[in-house]
């Protein structure tokens, strides 16, 4: 195969720190090439260098695309030559339509006037290609995240991209949506597309990619051909520099027979539409137990968690919540916290962290009263507890007084976790606790969960990753469309869960 994209000895420095260190690799035409590595390994930096986010001259080394030396000044420049990047955080504008988003900044014009009919025609073609069946006029705000991801791809294709760079394309998607996306990528490859994918989901890499390049600490470790024989363990070994036999720790939970939490007939209305979002939800959690809640994105799992954690979602029309057999008042976050409930959100940047504050301040935010006398904060205690948790959770940080915005995903997650562990909760609700973080940090989070459960804490784990859900939970509830549709306590496996969801669907998908 001809070398389509060639990267030669590229090094990018931030001060003294080399984010990527003389990386040399190539991508062939018409292949899907995965970039693997732990968080902070330098994957995103590499992609940003390729796509002109870091302009030519700010890095060392060079790269050639279609045989030509590339010296991009900005993203626009790289897009012009056919390299298009789709970032992990989607960049669509919610209040504009699908069509407008696809052609944003790239409008089809006659003179300086947008040619709507032409644009609509092209939009329909692109949408058909990526498998979107909505009207082109539909506003993006009304679409799910899976569909939004497809719009991003359509947008990229509209720019005549020759090579598509996808940063964690399936991180926010559920299994069905992910599969749809992977199928689309395979289809596009057959049509001649070249792509580079950053992903933490190794099974997906094996399914869809031709080759995988592994980087660690900014350096390229190896490039492997992907074949049926290549197993995940092999890739992980390259990523972490050690082999990981079992990323799910042995369960050592001490489950009591008493229910610590019971939710009875909980029905909650969506605050925007006024329609029921949760319908007669019943479940219980035993002391020391890890209960998983599985389901598709939008099944109502986060809404359930938010309702339990201080009625933060919608209007509760019926139902009650019992902690240790006693009915509780869960009308505010403070009240839920005083019942020993804590909630670690799926969106740590939006709901978990004050990014411009220090780590120590972030950790103490929910429990300031406990380190204060007459509302005066004991700052030494604040520092000390932050140092303790830095140690306990094995945070890789330079100082507890650095800003939260400077951390990678895994470490940010640990900060949020520390914040809630400081509240010493009896019931800890973890909403997608390992989303977008690397394998090493994931395993550490699993061990923390295990340890907490051993101490008699009870945990509700909301997760879209089936192996995780199954590997960690003692019991699993499956949710769909705002209802709990199945409870599994033995022989939990992905097929049963998927089957329950698929059969529950009432016609439309």
């Amino acid at each position, binding site marked *: 195969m001809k070398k389509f994209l060639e990267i030669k000895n590229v090094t990018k420095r931030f001060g003294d720190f080399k984010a990527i260190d003389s990386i040399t690799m190539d991508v062939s035409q018409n292949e899907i090439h995965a970039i693997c590595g732990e968080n902070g390994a330098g994957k995103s930096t590499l992609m940003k260098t390729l796509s002109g986010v870091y302009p030519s001259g700010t890095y060392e080394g060079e790269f050639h695309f279609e045989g030509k030396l590339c010296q991009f000044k900005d993203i626009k420049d790289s897009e012009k030559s056919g390299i298009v990047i789709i970032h992990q955080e989607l960049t669509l504008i919610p209040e504009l339509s699908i069509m407008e988003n696809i052609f944003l900044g790239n409008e089809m014009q006659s003179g300086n006037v947008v040619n709507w009919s032409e644009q609509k025609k092209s939009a329909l073609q692109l949408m058909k290609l990526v498998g979107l069946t909505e009207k082109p006029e539909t506003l993006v705000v009304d679409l799910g995240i899976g569909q939004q991801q497809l719009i991003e791809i359509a947008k990229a294709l509209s720019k005549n991209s020759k090579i598509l760079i996808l940063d964690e394309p399936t991180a926010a998607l559920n299994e069905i949506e992910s599969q749809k996306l992977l199928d689309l990528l395979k289809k596009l490859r057959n049509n001649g597309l070249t792509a580079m994918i950053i992903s933490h989901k190794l099974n997906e890499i094996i399914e869809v990619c031709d080759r995988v390049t592994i980087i660690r600490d900014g350096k390229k470790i190896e490039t492997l051909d992907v074949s049926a024989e290549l197993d995940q363990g092999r890739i992980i070994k390259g990523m972490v520099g050690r082999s990981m036999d079992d990323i799910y720790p042995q369960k050592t939970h001490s489950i009591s027979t008493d229910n610590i939490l019971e939710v009875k007939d909980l029905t909650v209305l969506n605050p925007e539409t006024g329609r029921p979002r949760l319908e007669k939800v019943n479940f219980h959690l035993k002391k020391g137990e890890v209960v998983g809640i599985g389901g598709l994105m939008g099944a109502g799992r986060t809404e359930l968690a938010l309702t339990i954690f201080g009625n933060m979602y919608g209007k509760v029309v019926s139902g009650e919540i019992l902690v240790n057999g006693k009915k509780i008042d869960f009308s505010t976050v403070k009240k839920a916290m005083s019942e020993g409930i804590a909630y670690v959100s799926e969106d740590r940047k939006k709901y978990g962290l*004050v990014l411009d504050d220090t780590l120590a301040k972030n950790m103490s*935010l929910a429990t300031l*009263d406990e380190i204060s006398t007459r509302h005066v904060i004991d700052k030494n205690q604040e520092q000390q507890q932050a140092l303790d948790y830095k140690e306990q959770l094995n945070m890789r940080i330079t100082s507890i007084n650095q800003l939260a915005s400077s951390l990678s995903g895994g470490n940010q997650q640990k900060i949020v976790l520390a914040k809630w562990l400081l509240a010493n909760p009896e019931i800890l609700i973890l909403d997608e606790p390992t989303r977008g973080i690397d394998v090493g940090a994931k395993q550490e989070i699993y061990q923390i969960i295990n340890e907490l459960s051993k101490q008699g804490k009870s945990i509700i784990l909301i997760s879209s990753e089936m192996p995780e859900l199954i590997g960690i939970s003692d019991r699993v509830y499956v949710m769909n469309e705002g209802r709990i549709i199945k409870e599994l306590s033995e022989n939990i496996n992905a097929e049963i869960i998927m089957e329950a969801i698929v059969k529950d669907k009432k016609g439309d998908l």
Partner: protein
Amino acid sequence: MKKILNSSLKQYSMLFALIILFLAFGALTGWVNVTPMNISNMIVQNAYILILAIGMLLVIITGNIDLSVGSIVGFTGAIAGVLMINMGLPTFLVVGICLVVGVIIGMFHGYFIAYKEVPAFIVTLAGMMIFRGLTMFILNGQTLAPFPDVFQKIATGFVLSDLSVGPFNLLTIIVMVCMTLIIIFTEIKKIKNSPLEFKEPSGIVMTRVAITLVVLNFIMFSLAKYNGIPVVFIVFIAIILLYSFFMNNITYGRHIYAIGGNYEAAEMSGIHNKRIIFAVYANMGLMAALSGMIVAARLNAATPQAGNMFELDAIAACYIGGASANGGKGTIIGAIIGGLIMATLNNGMSIMGVGVDIQQTVKGVVLLIAVLFDLKSRTKKS
């Protein structure tokens, strides 16, 4: 190490700017501006803007704005005028009433902003028009004067100005010595107590303390040589100390920063965001009323135009002092320094005989440059 150095330097860059600006005007005006009388006058003339800036800083940290403060200044001054001059009520009762009125106006704004979620810009723009209108209505478009002597003393009085040793006011000298000792003592305590990774290099600490002491002692020395400590200066220093402590060491202060830094995350941490924002506006009302009293006392009159555009000076002081327009950032000391930079510009240009037109223009340019500088140093870091 390098990081600590940078952050320390940045923190003090505005103070340096203030000192340099002050010295520059000194050189341009033949050092008229460093005379004890001018220093004393600068404090008395600007105290109310600085008090407003403190209230405004809290509002800005929550990510909001308050355009109504100038009108509240005028309104409370007008009420004071009517109650004291027309109705002859006792001075201190009237001051108390006016402060309560300020708080109620602040609560009125806070209610709509926090609980009804009407954008702060709109609510306080409405407040600005409403209370300016009411000021004119109450005063019938006329100016009321004069106020009783006791009231005037708030703005123009000095504490124990007769007690002096040679050319110096005794009390001022005592306060000056005490203040110096307290600052040195607390710095030593801070160094002893701070955990290792907090530690600043001793050179920086020394420089910082030295500069602070020189500036403060210069001010106190000037006051001692003139009439002693102005009453407003005491009010003003008390407010600075109180609010600095509140923002740095009290849980609610931390809540204010968290709300501005990330509203949702604060809410999810069990903070009562709405109550805090409501309280921040109530406090702004209080500060505006206090400022209204000082302005009225200084003018010795209640006028329909009192406090006009003060909100803009207060907002500018906060931004020049490093507060972020997005919320979550800013310090009391920063806002004070920002306010003093504006004051130095006003004062220096007035001495030079520059017209109000040019003064206004220069202040606008300085605001823009200061914010630009701040943004630039911030993006460089990331």
